């Protein structure tokens, strides 16, 4: 009897879970899985007279994978996104640390709100406005000239792209790191202090390992956002050199080559899947054993 009621209770729970999860699942199937399948299928299509033709050709894959411009763009995009993720993670940590451990509740809320404010404006508009700072005769160079320093070139260089990536990812990474650090068990930190652990060692041996999952996820998210960003490399980096997302646009712009653009997109998705998989494995890896 107890067995049957337990089973009934379990069935009810499953029904409830299905009812709760189904809309999201259906949404994902309709708007992610189906288009994704379509995207992959399109990589085998051909283009004739600017018109897409259902086909099964490997020509698009062969062309893109053997193109020098694709390989350069891939290496460049990967390296820039990885550096941006690393740099922003390192730079965000002291801020997140201060927010999580040093700031009072009210101050923390206020500062967290400040981190959300940038999202009130669309990213392209923010990037456009940054051109004012970085143009050759812009605000920064005017100040530098006033101080007798030589001007810096940021606009239309990889540095511009990098600045854009940092702008895009920094607020999110700080927020995520703050949540991760705030969730660290204070008793562990107190224990470390009681055992005469210095502050640096406390951070490296206690806080960072405890918050590892959150910290890695924050960095991974930064990588994902930068890797696919079109706005920064186009409007701050001047497409000089182009990233993969610009390459997608280029393939479509001249020649209407959606199939080739799809190849680039699929390679990007595969890359992100692998990188995210590796990072999450690293993040959660130790926990199962511990």
């Amino acid at each position, binding site marked *: 009897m107890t067995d049957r009621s337990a089973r009934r209770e379990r069935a009810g729970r499953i029904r409830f879970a299905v009812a709760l999860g189904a809309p999201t699942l259906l949404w994902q199937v309709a708007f992610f899985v189906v*288009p994704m399948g*379509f*995207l992959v299928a*399109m990589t085998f299509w051909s283009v004739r*007279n*600017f*018109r*897409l033709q*259902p086909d099964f050709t490997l020509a698009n894959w062969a062309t893109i994978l053997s*193109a*020098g*411009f*694709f390989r*350069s*763009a891939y290496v*460049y995009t990967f390296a820039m996104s990885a550096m941006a993720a690393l740099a922003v993670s390192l730079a965000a940590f002291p801020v997140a640390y201060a927010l999580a451990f040093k700031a009072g509740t009210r101050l923390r809320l206020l500062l967290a709100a400040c981190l959300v404010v940038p999202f009130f404006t*669309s990213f*392209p*508009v923010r990037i*456009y406005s940054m*051109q004012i700072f970085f*143009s*050759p*005769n*812009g605000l920064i160079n005017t100040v530098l000239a006033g101080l007798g320093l030589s001007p810096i*070139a940021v*606009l*239309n260089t990889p540095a511009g792209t990098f600045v854009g990536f940092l702008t895009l990812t920094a607020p999110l990474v700080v927020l995520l790191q703050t949540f991760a650090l705030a969730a660290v068990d204070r008793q562990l930190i107190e224990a470390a202090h009681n055992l005469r652990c210095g502050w640096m060692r406390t951070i490296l041996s206690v806080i960072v390992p405890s918050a590892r999952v959150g910290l890695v996820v924050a960095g991974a998210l930064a990588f994902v956002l930068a890797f696919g960003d*079109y*706005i920064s490399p*186009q*409007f701050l*980096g*001047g*497409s*000089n*050199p*182009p990233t993969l997302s610009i*390459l*997608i*646009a*280029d*393939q*479509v*712009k*001249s*020649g*209407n*080559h*959606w199939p080739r*653009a799809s190849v680039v*997109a699929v390679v990007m998705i595969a890359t992100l899947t692998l990188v995210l998989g590796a990072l999450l494995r690293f993040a959660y890896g130790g926990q199962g054993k511990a």
Partner: protein
Amino acid sequence: MTKFQITDPRGLLLRPTRRAVLQGAGALVGAAALGGVGAGPAYSQENVLNVLTWPGHGDPAFVKPFEDQYGVKVVAKEYVGGEPMLALMNQSPPGSFDVVLADAEYIGMLQEGGFIDEMNPADYPLADYWPEFQKFPLHWKEDKLYSVMIRFGYLGLAYRTDVLTEEDVKSYKALWSEKAKGKVGFFDWYLPTMGCLSLGNGNKSPFDIDEAAFETLKETLFSLRPQASGFYSMADQFAMLTNGTAGVIPGVGDWVVLLLQKEGVPVSAAVPDEGGIQWTESMSIVSSSAKKDLAKQFIQYASSPEGQFRSARLPAYWASIPNKKGWEKMIAEAPEDAAKLRHTFDARNVMDEYKDGKISIRQTPVQQDIETWNDAWSEFKAM
């Protein structure tokens, strides 16, 4: 499966919003602020004229008199570059557009694809046009008219006068000069840029070149990479010339600098001695349109003196006009602008360069396919 047509697969890649932003964040923000992005729903579809066009041609400054006269709304779907235009024509459901404004080099492709109608020359004031444009070759096929020129301009070098001098820009060699180092900007479209460099290489027909000449053109292009400052969208060129990031841009011309000059930016445009390229914007009636009369009336308006006068000074970018009566109207009503556009009869005017034989008409590549040129461009960018 074969009947299944993608009307707009861009949705997959989240491109439309980005492109829209690219074509003028300001306009987008403005439209959004007014509560409606895109066509106003106030007009029912039969009172709407849909025009597929380069940016700026749906501006009230140009279309308002026509809208008022006929009680219709002109809705412009904008594109940048001939290939995206062809793609839109190919992929949109029949009836999506009534008028297409295209560059002359694409008219032949539109005609062959059956996308545009034959036009009656008597319907349009071609007799008032400069003789050179009355029977513009790319608009005619087997003595039938398929398109009417609305605007044109020359492409050579656009430059900041504090970077290069008038003497410097007499040759495309200025692009490789020490003065232009790191300051050569590019309009991110292979066709005009590579065409001008091809002229610089001494090719008389810049787009009709053999394999050897094409390889040389690629070398010429690639040798410019160390000079490059960046690759700009249509709108970004204005900003980059203004803020000085770009000192010179090949493959563009008056259409970029005239508006900037008006704002006091020290820029100018030149057709170097090696020659320049002519671009045109021409209007055709779309075959699948259900409103061909209205389409015809719109093209009649655009080619009339009033339409020409307004179109020449489109707020998005200025251009030359082929109708001499339009010139007269401009000289009478806006003499300063006529002087800026060099649309005067008593001094050297824009038609003289044409008469000098320095101008080649822009075409798509003849001996190579578009993809080959475009791949060279992608390679150049990624160097």
